[in-house]
């Protein structure tokens, strides 16, 4: 699981961002972190809250592990980043409960602690940040949180719109509620559609890239012949 590390080390920051956030989207391509989306991503507020939680966990952790990860023994690394993630999330939960919204916390109280042992953390922090330079690690954490947040925002917005005809608890004016859209299977279907759509886009881009490569290769050959 933690293998694709080394090949990223020389990449540009923008490449890392686009690769992690879109081309190898955590949820849609690698099927990581599906559980919170399906169970908790039923309305936009929870979705955004979960995305922010992910960002709050990932950003400091990635920085920390890219700085000191190499100096810690292999077996201790998972313990370290899981523990730190738990601490961060406890803080987040307290902030959420006390100062933001108790109702939201009541809805999410199971899923926020679960983020600590989420595969997103172990995959991005354990797999990428350790052994990469701090800037790359931070960029990767941003990208991962962005990719995850994008997907959960889209899914939860659609589910909220269909199930209660509201967005961000504001009615949109139609009245045809389908409460089944809040059930898990609807999220599965949505995720499947979005994954298929992303694959289609990637394929199209790849095909056009291949054509470009072919053209350049042809030009190169001609060049050598001329020379």
């Amino acid at each position: 699981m933690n293998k694709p590390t080394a090949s990223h080390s020389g990449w540009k920051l923008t490449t890392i961002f686009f690769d992690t956030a879109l081309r190898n989207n955590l949820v849609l391509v690698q099927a990581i972190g599906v559980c919170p989306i399906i169970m908790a991503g039923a309305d936009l507020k929870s979705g955004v809250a979960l995305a922010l939680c992910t960002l709050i966990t990932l950003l400091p952790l990635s920085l920390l592990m890219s700085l000191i990860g190499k100096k810690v023994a292999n077996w201790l690394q998972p313990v370290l980043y899981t523990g730190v993630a738990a601490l961060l999330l406890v803080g987040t939960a307290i902030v959420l409960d006390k100062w933001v919204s108790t109702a939201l916390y009541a809805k999410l109280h199971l899923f926020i602690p679960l983020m600590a042992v989420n595969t997103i953390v172990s995959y991005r922090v354990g797999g990428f940040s350790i052994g990469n330079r701090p800037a790359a690690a931070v960029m990767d954490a941003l990208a991962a949180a962005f990719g995850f947040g994008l997907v959960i925002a889209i899914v939860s917005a659609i589910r909220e719109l269909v199930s209660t005809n509201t967005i961000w608890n504001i009615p949109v004016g139609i009245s045809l509620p389908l409460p089944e859209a809040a059930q898990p299977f609807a999220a599965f279907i949505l995720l499947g559609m979005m994954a298929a759509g992303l694959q289609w886009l990637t394929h199209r881009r790849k095909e056009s890239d291949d054509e470009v490569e072919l053209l350049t290769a042809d030009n190169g050959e001609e060049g050598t012949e001329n020379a």
Partner: protein
Amino acid sequence: MESIITPSLRAGRSVISYSFDVLIAVAALTVFSYVQYGLRPVLVVLIAIASAVISETVCCLLCRRRITLGDGTAFVTGGLIGVLMSPIVPIYVPIIASAFAIVIAKMPFGGSGRNIFNPAAAGVALVTVCFERSMSAFPNPSQNVRLWWDTSEVLYQNSVAATLKSGGTSFETFTDLLFGSTPGAIGTTTVLVLVACLLYLRFRRTVSTAGFIAYMLTCTALALLFPRAEGDYWRSVMLELFSGTLLFTGVFFLNDPTTTPHHTGGRVAFGILLGGMVMLLRHFGQYADGACFAVLLLNPLAPIIDRWTWQLHRFVEMRWIRRE
């Protein structure tokens, strides 16, 4: 040089004849329901078929592919959804079920032959979840229901499976179950016609019965071990086997060529698993009849089961049979 084999002699049948056989079975079930309830079941089945066909056509047009109605699988999907509806179901329910089956469960996977989930089971599962009341309200048997919208004065009755689920007492005799004078969905109550359909499909070699036998034996064993009905064990077995969609699932969903294993050993293994899963969902599930969910849960395992049983078969053949 590689040789290219193009047999110019065709010994088999065409895809359409497979679909046609299943449609004949569906028609038989519908006709029997017509005798009991009047024209309404026929209307439901026809609307389900029409919805499936239109959905498939629209999908093909949207994807700019050749329209694949010709192999008849869309008709089969619609027909199976239709006969799994209650005779007094609101008309929009089969429409939604068929459209979901084609648009979500079939076409995104690549159309007929490539779908992972049984489309008909997926459609029925969706409406079971979404319109639970419409799907579990069945009219009294031998009561003519009105053809169009108003079905309010119909006397509702719980199906046998629902009675079993709720732990009530049921008074159906074997003859009632055999001739379908029990409340239930259009095509699932008449055991006699279902068995006739199975025999017809077997005779036409559209289905193989190995998986069906394994499935029924598993269900029988589980019904014997964990009886739910009052009375002796055999009454429990009879009520379990002949109520709800259990038998229907064994005849149609278990023998769907695309979403079940193709190797005989694989079919047997699939039948045993499906029987176990159906009984499990009956005992612990939320709904009176979880056969559709059981089918959907096991469909993705079909290729793996197929491969494993084939490898086991090869291994046994190499090890013990070829050695002599």
